[in-house]
């Protein structure tokens, strides 16, 4: 279920990149930022949030464990670390 929800979330965020509703909108936000520009600046923040969600809920812990074991194993073998 978690995998499904995260997949849908990522697909929705990817779809939100195509803001067709702003295509010809020339209005200004705060009097100096075109709305299409403001949207895509905001989109980058959404992308950052999405990655934070993936890091929190889809992080490959198995790889982390494997490589930590590997590092510990090497440290045991090599007294210099």
């Amino acid at each position, binding site marked *: 279920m*978690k*995998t499904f929800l*995260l*997949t849908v979330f*990522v697909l929705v*965020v*990817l779809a939100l*990149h*195509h*803001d*067709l509703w*702003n*295509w*010809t*909108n*020339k*209005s*200004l936000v705060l*009097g*100096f*930022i*075109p709305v*299409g*520009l403001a*949207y*895509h*600046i905001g*989109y*980058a*923040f959404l*992308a*950052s949030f*999405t*990655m*934070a969600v*993936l*890091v929190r809920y*889809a*992080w*490959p*812990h*198995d*790889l*982390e464990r*494997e*490589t930590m074991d*590997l590092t510990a194993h090497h440290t045991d073998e090599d007294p210099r670390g």
Partner: protein
Amino acid sequence: MNPAIIVFIYLAIVLYIGIFAFRKGKESGEDFFLANRSLGPYVFLLSLFGTNMTAFAILGSSGLAYRQGIGVLGLMASSSAMVIPLTIFFIGTRLWALGKKHGHMTQVQFLRDRWEAGGIGTFISVLTAAMLVPYIIIGVMGGGQTLEAISTVNGRTWVSYEFGGALVAVVVMSYVFFGGMRGTAWVNTFQTVLFLCFGTLAFILLAQSIGGFGSIMQQLASNPRTASLLARDRMSAEEFFSYMFIPLSAIMFPHISIMCLTAERISHFRKTVIWYPLCIIAIWAPSVYLGVVGAALFPGLGPGESDDIIIRLLTANVGPLLSGILGAGIMACVMASDSQILALSTIFSEDLFAYYGGKERFSDRMQVWAGRLFIVLIALVSYWVALKLKDRAGIFELAIRFAFSGFAALSPIMLAALFWKRSTKWGALAAALWVTGCMGLNWYLQTISDPIAPRPPAPAVRPVVAQRDGTPALARSEPVNGPGATSSRATGAQQNAPAGGARPIKPVQIFPQYGDLFLRGPVNVTVYGFLPVFPMVIGSAVLMIVVSLLTPPPGQATIDKYFPPRRDAQQTGV
């Protein structure tokens, strides 16, 4: 003061960083090519980001925004802000873990081992190396051009193209030669900080100098001929959609994937993928915005001229000190070719020299020296080509544009290798041959359609130099009309509309008997209006799947090595 002095100081600093890294290094292949897989989280983030930034991030993006408007940010930057971190998250972390576990130092080492594919690995290695070469040549050319432009004061040029190109080639060669990956990563970190500081500083000083941007934007919006710059009237929806596939190329670039192997811990990827989108937007948003501001202050720039719009804005509105810092910032972008030179050297040393027996015969230390000699060779050949083909840079720019599509279309190979047990080397070969064939076809179609390419109207007005007194030139200039440049020093530039038009230029059919299958716009060939990258990625993925299902998989031992049962049971990722 000649602004070139600041650039020389900058070059001296990066040279020192490379030599300092040399003193910290050891004479082993893993240390020279991968910094001993020991980069900390901040150096890893900044160097990975810096490696992926080119002159296009500042110069090309603003030049393109000058012609196409604010849509450039969504077209190229915000799509990258989402897709590149995703690929680093799903592919980069796994490449890192497998590299750590099995000792891989290149993509091809992994692919060879994963599919028991020696010769096919060599083919992919040579293909990716060939797609990387034009970047290095363009880097040397850009260095020469930038130093020549910056050092020209009152009509007198102090540093020639030839000397500037040689200087850039020698400096990059030296710190890569001595410092290897550690030196390159440190220099890239320094360059990224410089990008970010320069962008912020330039934006603030310009805003102060011209009295804020609000009035300029209002004037652009109120003029029907320039209002389209504030939206995406000049872009086609198909082109905008196609661009979402281009950032898939990032992780397939050898220098990016090799850089992914340098992190000390997998946890360093956490900060990287979260901060990466914000770093991209911090560089691109001011550049795109200033490109649009430039369209108001310097209307009517012709082909090629608009790529210098930020330089024009700064030199007209701020002093020589900042111009020098700007020059250093541009040099930092241009010199992003350092990691590409190192990647080529790593490919040569690991995929060819070591694989075909050099390591066994000559020792690890000799392998490092072979890699170093290769770095010198690449630098010398690049400089020679940059001199001989000085006036034919367009060929390399075109090659770079195709390479973006090519690397993006190779991404299904990597995804299959990492996530699909049943994938086979024959599927990978079919996909790689498809990519090679598509790039050849694209080149052919581009060449034969040049004579029929629709031309944008010539500029109606010449540049009007903005005043240092801060008076925006828009009020006293003609409306922006028609440059629609078709040239750009940048990679992947798409310019399908004239600056004065409110709609994209209608492309023409290359073969009328096939209808809209192959269309030619002012710059690109498209397939039913989509950029070639879209069908290339889809075709590559389909071939990877179909051919894999029709051919025998690798041996069970190899599959178990990369998909151990224990790991399968614990998999939690999406």
